[in-house]
């Protein structure tokens, strides 16, 4: 029988973030706060063109400036030093620039001011080339090439998939809808801007302090850079400061990190590169803008018959790991609702725009926007209620989808019920007011993107009953430290504050593939739980000798180790640990555990159970559309999620609220505006991130399905909050005023144009 929350003493409790006071009082050390002795300041010079040949670079004046220690250009970068998924991106470009964001030079100086001055003294002669900014145009045969040495702007990628028989299913469908949707550039807007400090010891081993969500994979990238620099067999230590938000932005290593390494090596001093907000906007990445063609059909009863989708992604000028987002888009395309026949083609296309990258949801928000908008269109065409069509086609526990996803637990129906309970869907709203619903599926039990989906944990008991947990996982503000503390505390009968979670240093912490794919609670949580169970057994073994009872009779609660029913046989955990340490022939109580979920890499066939379990959810929105201005006001919002179990409902709600507000910005206001490849709104005034005043009241019903593989039943919830937000809003707008906006963001002008068109 599954456990209920009352069976737990720490899990399921609303425990505020353990680092909240540190952060609120300004004590937390971000990269901006760190200063090392002798540290220099690095700065990067970017291209002034979207596409140009570099004819000449003259750095002599910068080199001559007093206080400048090093000036680098593309010529100084080793040939093999390249970043990204297909290693097409050197940290400083040589000979040619392909986007405004391309790095052309870098300096290190004794102060940020001198470094800036040095940049101003670098003279570059460019020869401008024709730029290509529209991915569909870039796909045309005679399009200019972004990279001249390639035959086409289209990346060689595998997404051309056909499950079942779409053509046949289409013929047999009673109703078919077809349309084109587009999504825009948005960016992560981490409050903590990017930065890194690199330094070498006398033996050329590298230490790098950097904001990263992938310490272990970053370590690998940096080792490759060292190798390219001729530094073989060296060590790389990655130290993470406190990170002010990730949202996927830190899933790749960036040019600034590799440039800091080059500068530090050249200067033999620590070199810090820290971005200001403009640089953060211009030189970090965006979510992939997409052009989506969707066709889907159902039979006369509303049962989905097929789904046929084609996606074009603007890759930008270089290829990050984010180019693999089509693999994650495949998940909702193949598996949101039961649909047997699925066709899917995705193309990533080089353009002279900024390169896009991983961002919360990793392609899922784009795909779900099209799917869930189209679901409403199909329901209308088939004359079926829009909630009903979702119920008819809902995923269910025990399903295996065409892609091979094995749905272990599924609370989608309960989520839809929860949304329906909170909002009226009877179409009887006042004029201009409407409701909309959209569902989601997301990986909730890790995601095997790489060969491994593993995470390690090391657990060390101290002398006083407190615990240090060294995790491979990364807390970038989302609260993983709390989750791990609560999991370990529950297992060992302690309080959350008895657990110190260390995640900051690759010299200390075990390996992990990174904080992505909503995997940390599930994977890092299971790793910590595994280590806690192991150490528990060791303690039981030690106590069994002490109490003279079989080990399995010993329990842990309220910081005590005891045998139930025998008051004599009870001891505070701390005392027991001291006995272990101080007895002759003593023992140290420590354990390690590596958890790698039993999920599958999709391989070349793009088939397989990529996650151990899947998270589901349904969002409902009630909006009011001002028919005179086109402005949309969100009146109510419900975000119901199947989370397996809420380890900490307070943090979980925080994740959902944050996700929803991010999703609302995506739906309504946010867009990186780009003019011929150049970002025009690189600041928070012109980039319309929601403000506190724009945020709406969100109800976040939690559906607990107690997943058998999750730590205490939990699934991941990091990303889902922002996945179905845009279609829920778009569907509500349609319900309110009868216009369907297919291009994000849904700005007042788009709504007004559509209203005019409808009324004419």
């Amino acid at each position, binding site marked *: 029988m599954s456990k209920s929350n009352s069976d737990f003493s720490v899990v399921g409790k609303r425990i505020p973030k353990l680092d909240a006071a540190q952060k609120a009082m300004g004590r937390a050390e971000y990269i901006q706060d760190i200063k090392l002795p002798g540290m220099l300041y690095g700065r990067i010079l*970017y291209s*002034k*063109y979207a596409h140009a040949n570099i004819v000449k670079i003259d750095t002599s004046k910068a080199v001559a400036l007093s206080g400048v220690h090093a000036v680098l250009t593309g010529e100084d970068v080793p040939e093999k030093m390249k970043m990204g998924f297909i290693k097409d991106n050197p940290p400083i470009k040589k000979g040619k620039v392909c986007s405004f964001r391309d790095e052309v030079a870098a300096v290190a100086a004794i102060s*940020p*001011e001198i470094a800036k001055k040095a940049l101003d003294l670098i003279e570059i002669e460019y020869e401008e080339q024709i730029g290509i900014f529209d991915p569909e145009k870039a796909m045309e045969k005679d399009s200019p090439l972004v990279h001249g040495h390639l035959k086409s702007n289209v990346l060689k990628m595998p997404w051309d998939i056909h499950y079942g028989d779409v053509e046949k299913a289409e013929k047999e469908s009673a109703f078919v809808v077809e349309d084109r949707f587009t999504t825009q550039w948005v960016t992560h807007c981490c409050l903590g801007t990017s930065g890194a400090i690199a330094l070498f010891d006398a033996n050329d081993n590298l230490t790098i302090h950097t904001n990263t969500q992938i310490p272990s994979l970053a370590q690998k990238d940096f080792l490759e850079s060292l190798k390219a620099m001729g530094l073989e067999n060296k060590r790389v230590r990655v130290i993470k400061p406190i990170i002010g938000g990730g949202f996927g932005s830190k899933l790749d290593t960036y040019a600034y990190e590799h440039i800091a390494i080059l500068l530090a090596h050249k200067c033999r001093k620590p070199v810090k590169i820290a971005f*200001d*907000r*403009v640089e953060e906007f211009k030189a970090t990445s965006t979510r992939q803008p997409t052009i989506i063609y969707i066709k889907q059909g159902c039979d006369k009863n509303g049962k989905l018959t097929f789904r046929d989708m084609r996606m074009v992604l603007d890759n930008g000028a270089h290829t990050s790991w984010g180019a693999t987002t089509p693999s994650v888009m495949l998940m909702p395309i193949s598996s949101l609702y039961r649909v047997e026949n699925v066709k899917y083609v995705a193309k990533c296309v080089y353009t002279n725009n900024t390169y896009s990258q991983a961002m919360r949801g990793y392609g899922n928000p784009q795909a779900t926007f099209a799917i869930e908008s189209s679901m409403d269109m199909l329901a209308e065409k088939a004359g079926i209620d829009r909630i009903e069509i979702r119920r008819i086609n809902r995923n269910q526990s025990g399903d295996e989808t065409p892609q091979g996803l094995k749905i272990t637990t599924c609370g989608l129906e309960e989520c839809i019920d929860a949304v329906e309970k909170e909002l009226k869907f009877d179409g009887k709203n006042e004029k201009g007011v409407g409701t909309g619903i959209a569902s989601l599926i997301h990986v909730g039990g890790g995601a095997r993107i790489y060969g491994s989906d593993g995470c390690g944990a090391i657990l060390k008991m101290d002398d006083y009953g407190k615990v240090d947990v060294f995790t491979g996982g990364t807390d970038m503000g989302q609260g993983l430290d709390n989750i791990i503390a609560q999991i370990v505390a529950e297992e060992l009968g302690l309080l959350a504050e008895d657990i110190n979670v260390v995640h900051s240093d690759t010299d200390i912490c075990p390996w992990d593939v990174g904080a992505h794919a909503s995997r940390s609670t599930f994977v890092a949580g299971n790793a910590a739980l595994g280590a806690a169970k192991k150490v528990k057994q060791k303690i039981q073994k030690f106590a069994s000798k002490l109490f003279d009872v079989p080990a399995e009779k010993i329990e842990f609660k309220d910081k005590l180790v005891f045998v139930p029913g025998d008051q004599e046989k009870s001891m505070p955990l701390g005392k027991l640990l001291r006995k272990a340490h101080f007895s002759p022939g003593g023992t140290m109580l420590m354990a390690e555990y590596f958890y790698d979920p039993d999920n599958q890499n999709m391989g070349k066939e793009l088939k397989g159970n990529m996650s151990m379990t899947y998270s589901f959810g349904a969002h409902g929105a009630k909006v009011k559309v001002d028919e*005179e*201005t*086109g*402005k949309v006001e969100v009146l109510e919002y419900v975000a119901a999620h199947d989370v397996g179990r809420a380890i900490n409902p307070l943090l979980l709600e925080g994740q959902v609220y944050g996700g929803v507000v991010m999703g609302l910005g995506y739906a309504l*206001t946010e867009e990186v*505006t780009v003019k011929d490849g*150049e970002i*025009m*709104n*690189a600041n*928070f*005034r*012109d980039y*319309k991130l*929601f*403000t*506190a*005043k*724009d945020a709406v009241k969100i109800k976040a019903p939690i559906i607990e399905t107690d997943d058998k593989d999750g730590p205490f039943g939990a699934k991941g919830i990091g990303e889902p909050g922002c996945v179905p937000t845009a279609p829920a809003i778009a569907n509500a707008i349609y319900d309110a005023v009868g216009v369907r906006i297919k291009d994000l963001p849904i*700005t*007042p*002008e788009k709504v*007004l*144009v559509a209203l005019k068109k409808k009324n004419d």
Partner: protein
Amino acid sequence: MRLPRFEYIEPINFEGALDLLYIHKDNAKVLAGGTDLLVRMKKGLLKPKIIISLKALKELSYIKKDDSYIKIGARTSIADIIASDLIKKEACALFEACEKIGAVTIQHYRGTIGGNILQDNRCIHYNQSAFHRSGRQPCHKDGGKICYARDASDRCNSTCQSDGATALMALGANITLVRKGTERIIDLDNFYTTDGIMPFAMESNELLKEIVIPIQGGKSSYKRLAYRSAIDYPIVSAGVFLKSSDTSKNEIEDARIVVGAIARAPIFLAKASSFLKGKKFNDISAFKKAADISMDNASTFAVHNVGSTLEYRCAMVSEMVFQALKEAAIVTQE
């Protein structure tokens, strides 16, 4: 982004500030709340050698009734204006405008009314980082001869997005400008120059001392459209003032319609305003007509430079004017 170097001087009285301006003229800039000035300095749009801070000049912070005028000191915080019953009652448009400025924190701790009406014009092409601008020829406002907002334009097409300016112009406000030894009063219609490069008829040695709003017994309203609820400039705004005649309460004797955030200066729309004279307060179709005239007249001056589309912003001129008129009329009737 860092501030360029400057010398900071904090005069202890008004005379001291005037002396400093007299000496330093163009080399100095006056700092009140800094929410406009410092941002521009960070972007390298301005590099004053000297900053004259009004921080100590508490004497410039007041709201008072003087005969049939409301007088507001230039350094009065936005929050004080929002909190003033006098302004809410006699100059509602200003109250509504101030409510929309920045965000609560900016209204309380930084923003001043003087700073708001003296904020520089904006343009998406001009208000960019120094690096962004360094990659191209300078535009008119940046000292060059090109306009990126409108091809082949021989003048600057920046926009005045001040909420306060539009509301105050609708209220028929004057301002008092002082320089060492002399002071002058100018009405806002003449103060805003429609020159995008130098949007104000103001000398570098002058200081804004006071804003004077006549109490005329009419009702005013201010409406604006922006994407966000806070920290956002309007993309269109409208301030209106309606006054009933002494003989017939239901008849409009005087009207002033001003639209903002659409052109180089807030625009007083004389034709639309005079159209309303003699109309009834409950004549919704007259308001609609006046709003459409406003749109037609304002569109001539509209510039495409603050995001959104020009078509949409022009269409919204009519809507904002209409909303403001309706609101002012309802309040009058009550």
